[in-house]
């Protein structure tokens, strides 16, 4: 447990020390909010949630890339693969909540007519999905430029796809959009339930995928036989 907490803590420390990056990460959701603010508030909320998702995914992608050289030696220092990927994910979830919190406050102050509990749950889904999603791209695509372009593509598809279409449910951040509809348009609770279920399932699938890829990448090779001393 101590190993997991230490990795989580160091991940959060690293991320929160990148002040310039943090500012830019905060800028994107803010811009998304402001750009649609004069029109229908629902568009602002959906854009904001997409901005938070993009920001946390990007942070996860870069954190995973930065740890690529460090993790093998930590593995030799006594860490198991699950300490490393779960610890990093926990750190990213913490950092994601720090990024999301001011925007939740912004919706409370700027759009009092919303169901703010729903906005909070939608943001939780964004953060919950975005951290393992960014990590998965990071472990699959070692070059950050390729990873960033893939993230951009996913977010663009998410933004443009018809949310009522069946294909929309295959996109990772559909949950936050569904919950946002409940929070903004005061629709029935089915939207909330579907959104939460989608968020949980997608998060679980992404965590499992990160676990599988990381375990293979950080596995102990079969040619190495380690014997105890004495």
């Amino acid at each position, binding site marked *: 447990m101590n190993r997991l907490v230490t990795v989580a803590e160091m991940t959060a420390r690293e*991320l929160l020390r990148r002040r310039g990056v943090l500012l830019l990460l905060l800028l994107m959701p803010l811009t998304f909010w402001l750009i649609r603010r004069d029109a229908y508030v629902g568009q602002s909320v959906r854009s904001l949630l997409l901005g938070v998702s993009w920001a946390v995914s990007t942070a996860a992608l870069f954190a995973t890339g930065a740890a690529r*050289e460090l993790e093998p*030696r930590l593995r030799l220092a006594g860490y198991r693969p699950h300490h490393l990927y779960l610890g990093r994910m926990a750190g990213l979830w913490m950092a994601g909540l720090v990024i999301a919190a001011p925007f939740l406050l912004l919706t409370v102050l700027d759009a009092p007519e919303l169901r703010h509990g729903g906005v909070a749950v939608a943001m939780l889904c964004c953060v919950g999905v975005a951290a393992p999603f960014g990590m998965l791209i990071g472990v699959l695509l070692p070059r950050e430029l390729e990873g960033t372009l893939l993230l951009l593509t996913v977010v663009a598809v998410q933004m443009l796809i018809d949310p009522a279409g069946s294909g929309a449910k295959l996109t990772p951040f559909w949950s936050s959009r569904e919950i946002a509809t409940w929070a903004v348009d005061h629709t029935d609770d089915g939207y909330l339930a579907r959104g939460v279920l989608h968020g949980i399932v997608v998060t679980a699938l992404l965590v499992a995928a990160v676990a599988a890829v990381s375990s293979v990448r950080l596995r102990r*090779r079969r040619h190495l036989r380690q*014997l*105890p001393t004495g």
Partner: protein
Amino acid sequence: MNADEWLRTLAAELHQRRVAADAARHVVVEAATHLREDGRDPWLVLGPPGEYAAAISESIGPAPRPRPGPVRLHAQGITKRYGRHTVLRDASLTVRAGQIAAVVGANGCGKSTFLRICAGLVSLDTGQVTVTGRLGYCPQQGGTADFLLPDEHFVLVGAGRGVARGPARRAGRTAARQLGWEAGGDVLTRHLSGGTRQKLNLTMSTLSEPDVLLLDEPYQGFDHGTYVNFWDQLARLRDQGKAIVVVTHLLNQLDRVDLVLDLTAATRGERA
């Protein structure tokens, strides 16, 4: 520098030159007596402590090294291909406790790949590696986190073995001091010079108290003094019974190692 400081420096210099502990103690006592009787500045009486220690070391020689212990690393028949390109063919190396092995060869001959295979970080096509005890590995570059402090690196590595934060920090600072670096500051790793970052890299690899230490050209960016300290520290670790494999292209230090594995295509094989 007063007499006490001069004597302390002399003792450290003798230790670094691997003068036997008994002989070193005797030399320090004799020097202290001489300085007390003379009463003048020790620099005027006996000169710089480093030069005095060098003269002593030259006259009485280093302490005899302990005999190599049991086999710690046995790499046999290592062959590695990337596509159609064979990087390593049937490379073998056996290192015992208390030995330093150098892996040498031309650029691109697979030195780093060989070390990563020994560390179990890269798969191979044929062969086997047996390691007895704990492994430590220092990569050629990377392996540190830009936005963490050196102390946080020590905590991170220490936690892998269940070492508490305080002792991990102290162990890291002590190991760093052996390389002439005071690691306790609050400077982020990204602001460290290339050489100091390599000291951090090297310090991290020794922190988990490995029985087998794999070092991939860890001295890049070191100044001359640190480079000398590095080889002295390797000698100390060897005397403590560690098995060390160091990738190097600096052939002028091969007199300080016990084994050489030359991976250059024309001369693959082990020679002692």
